[in-house]
């Protein structure tokens, strides 16, 4: 760097002013994000305090948020899906893992971690990317119900056409098919593969 630096100093100087402006813009964005996060954490603390987490009920806020993401995607609503994705990440953080079977806790911890990651991505992506994460998330939520149980009947639904015909699944609280992976484009694609009952 030292020898070449002087040679290129002229060009460097010319661009430096511009680059500095870009950086200062970026910084203020980061600060805004940090402020939002603090607000989110506060909201989460409130949620956890009021949650009565026992048995299948512990999963209620998680399923509520997951299904809110699903419904938003059915309606092609990126904004609502993003909001629900954030709620989902918060709900997962609030899940008290220690109340479940000791030998299942590691797996549950891993599921929560991955699902939270999906929620965070859904909170800040365009709709195609939201759907990708939602599809992957659906498997995690299904695996989670196998450990935690469920507070409502869930329908495991599958559309073979998603992702270049590789197929994709999701969970719904109603039997009727409304496709969140395609939305209005192919609302009816899919069928119930399995019912996860109470």
């Amino acid at each position, binding site marked *: 760097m030292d020898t070449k*630096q002087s040679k290129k100093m002229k060009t460097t100087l010319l661009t430096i002013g511009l680059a500095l402006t870009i950086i200062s813009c970026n910084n203020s964005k980061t600060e805004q994000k940090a402020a939002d996060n603090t607000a989110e954490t506060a909201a989460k603390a409130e949620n956890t305090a009021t949650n009565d987490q026992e048995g299948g009920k512990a999963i209620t806020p998680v399923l509520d948020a997951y299904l809110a993401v699903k419904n938003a995607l059915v309606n092609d609503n990126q904004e609502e899906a993003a909001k629900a994705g954030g709620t989902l990440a918060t709900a997962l953080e609030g899940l008290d893992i220690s109340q479940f079977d000791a030998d299942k806790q590691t797996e549950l911890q891993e599921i929560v971690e991955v699902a939270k990651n999906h929620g965070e991505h859904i909170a800040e992506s365009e709709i195609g990317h939201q759907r990708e994460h939602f599809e992957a998330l659906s498997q995690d939520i299904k695996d989670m119900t196998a450990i935690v149980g469920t507070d409502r009947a869930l329908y495991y639904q599958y559309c073979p056409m998603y992702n270049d015909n590789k197929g994709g699944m999701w969970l719904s609280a109603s039997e009727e098919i409304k496709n969140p992976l395609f939305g209005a484009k192919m609302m009816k694609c899919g069928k119930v593969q399995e019912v996860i009952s109470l």
Partner: protein
Amino acid sequence: MKKAAIIILILSIGIQFIPMPKNQSNEVPKTDFLQTIEAPVNIQQMIKASCYDCHSNNTNYPWYGRVRPFAWLLQQHIDEGKDELNFSTFQEYSGRMQREKIRSMISQISDGKMPLKEYLWMHPEAELTNDEKEQLIKYLEKLNP
């Protein structure tokens, strides 16, 4: 005009002395992705050349890579990149998370979102041809049946 030039000169030299971390490490940790998968050499080279600068603990810095303010921009990319996926510590992810990261790699590569366009401007050699993308995706899909 002359005064302004002098001020910019002093500032731009001054900022070179603001300390900042360097994303470099001499050892390849046991948790490294390429260390643990037995990938063919060409796959390893592709991943190393196109991903490791921002997604590992070892960045191959370009000459301007330590010159502020470029270094700051670079550092921001590296921080964000490693936060999302760090190949150096890949084995520290849970099995479920590893599968998720591989799923995500496949989707990012096939959507053309990675490697980042901004990165390719300065590193044209890191660009993957369609053929290379196909090979890479096929390989990653084998890891994630």
